[in-house]
């Protein structure tokens, strides 16, 4: 983990409010594990003030490239869209623990919306993984996932692309055929996946989101409810990836 001033190699819209940025960072591209994130300063000035956590979506160690996929939803991510090739980005990373990798097991990956970001790099590491992706209407990054897995099913709420419905429905049908499930996406989806896996005694790892201050474990603001009610977990260092049994997803 360290601070790196990274050159932006490309930054453009993928679809709707989804953007893809490629930055140059030798260290991050060499060290980062799937599920880890980087902490990015949006613009200079004090508004916005804090860094923004963004997952490592993909990387190319040979060319020192790190790919980010981000959804514009506020001040900071909007500022990201203003940066262009050649600009520099102030980044901390790689941060967090990342997904545990089991090669000999039968694994499924399920992602919803922008939650698919960390799952691309994960599917690259888990060659054999079966991938379930859900979107509202527009799909994105499908081709990229196809590079790393030949077993991908796509779902959209309105059925405009792929199958109509939610990926959790398909996962439910096949749940017994997996040893481990990896998930990232909206809390409601994570809750469903957690319950599904725990009912079927299947190991489940989910990537959590909480607002962050430092991003490195020093400020305790990223607390999330843990299943043991004695203590909170720090999403930035205990996570962002947790065994579903560790965390409590109720509101």
């Amino acid at each position, binding site marked *: 983990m360290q601070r790196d001033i990274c050159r932006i190699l490309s930054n453009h819209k993928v679809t709707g409010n989804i953007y893809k940025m490629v930055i140059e960072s030798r260290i991050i591209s060499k060290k980062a594990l799937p599920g880890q994130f980087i902490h990015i*300063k949006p613009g200079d000035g004090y508004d916005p*003030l804090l860094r923004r956590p963004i997952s490592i979506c993909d990387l190319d160690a040979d060319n020192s490239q790190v790919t980010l996929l981000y959804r514009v939803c506020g001040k900071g991510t909007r500022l990201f869209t203003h940066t262009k090739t050649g600009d520099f980005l102030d980044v901390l990373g790689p941060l967090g623990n990342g997904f545990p990798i089991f090669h000999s097991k039968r694994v499924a990956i399920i992602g919803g919306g922008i939650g698919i970001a960390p799952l691309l790099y994960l599917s690259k590491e888990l060659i054999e993984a079966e991938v379930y992706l859900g979107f509202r209407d527009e799909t994105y990054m499908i081709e990229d996932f196809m590079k790393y897995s030949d077993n991908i099913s796509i779902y959209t709420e309105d059925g405009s692309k792929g199958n109509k419905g939610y990926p959790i429905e398909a996962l439910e049908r096949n749940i017994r055929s997996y040893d481990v499930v990896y998930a990232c996406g909206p809390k409601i989806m994570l809750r469903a996946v957690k319950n599904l896996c725990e009912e079927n005694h299947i190991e489940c790892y989910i990537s959590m989101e909480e607002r962050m201050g*430092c991003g*490195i*474990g*020093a*400020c*305790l*603001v990223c607390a999330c409810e843990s299943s043991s009610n004695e*203590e909170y977990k720090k999403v930035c260092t205990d996570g962002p990836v947790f065994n579903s049994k560790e965390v409590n997803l109720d509101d």
Partner: protein
Amino acid sequence: MIDMRVDIGGVKLKNPVLVSSGTFGFGKEYSKFYDLNLLGGVAVKGITLKPRKGNKPPRIMETPAGILNSVGLENPGLDVFIEKELPFLKKYSVPIIANISGNTIEEYSLMAKELNDHVDLIELNVSCPNVKEGGIAFGTKSDSVYEVTKEVRKNCSIPIIVKLSPNVTDITEMALAAEEAGADCISLINTIMGMAIDIENRKPYFHNIVAGLSGPAVKPISLRMVWQVAQKVNIPVIGMGGISNWQDAIEFMMAGADAISIGTANFYNPLAPIEVLEGIEKYMVENGISNLSEIKINGGVK
């Protein structure tokens, strides 16, 4: 040769740049960015006698040029702090400031007594807005500031820093009460009580309703309070509240601060303390200032 040393109740800080309690954990995290021995001192996360789980999330909200936090003094408690957390920092020669909060004067005293042989300085947090009992309750009345300081003074021999709350009408009253009770140093400011509302869900954003405001947004207020206090007390003052760069630090030192502390800035710039230190050094050299107190406006004459 420039002399950056600061003397706080007999403890010599090698320079005036500290890091603020609650923003720097117990030192481990930021030690990956630079050698902690470069710092003038480290104020560790606020400690209570018993472990505290802290407040229910969410705990942070970004505001214009600031943040609201509602950590609620999550900490492992005095004993675990001494056994498990302190050893790491002890490997460094940097002065360690233990920041303590209590529900009663007895708790403050007990903790001070315990810590006396383990840390270099004690900072009395009488100003945490994020806990129901104690904390700020002590910091908004001069007589309770006086009493808690006086009692703690009896129970430890190491220097005592009293950390003041900005949520008062006249902060100099609190500073004078602390000085009179035997404090060796005043630090200010703690966070300012603020609030945010989640308009989607029509409820206060934080479970605790109020939270503590910090960051650049509060700098004009903290600078004013540091100035007011420095005019009145004859003990050293540690200034903090929104300091992000060396220019901010120089403003606080001109206002009368003997040392400054970096808090929220660590989050957006982990190298802030080092950059501030280098900036102050450069400023002194370029302006032919050999001694920190010369930075004070009219040499700090009151």
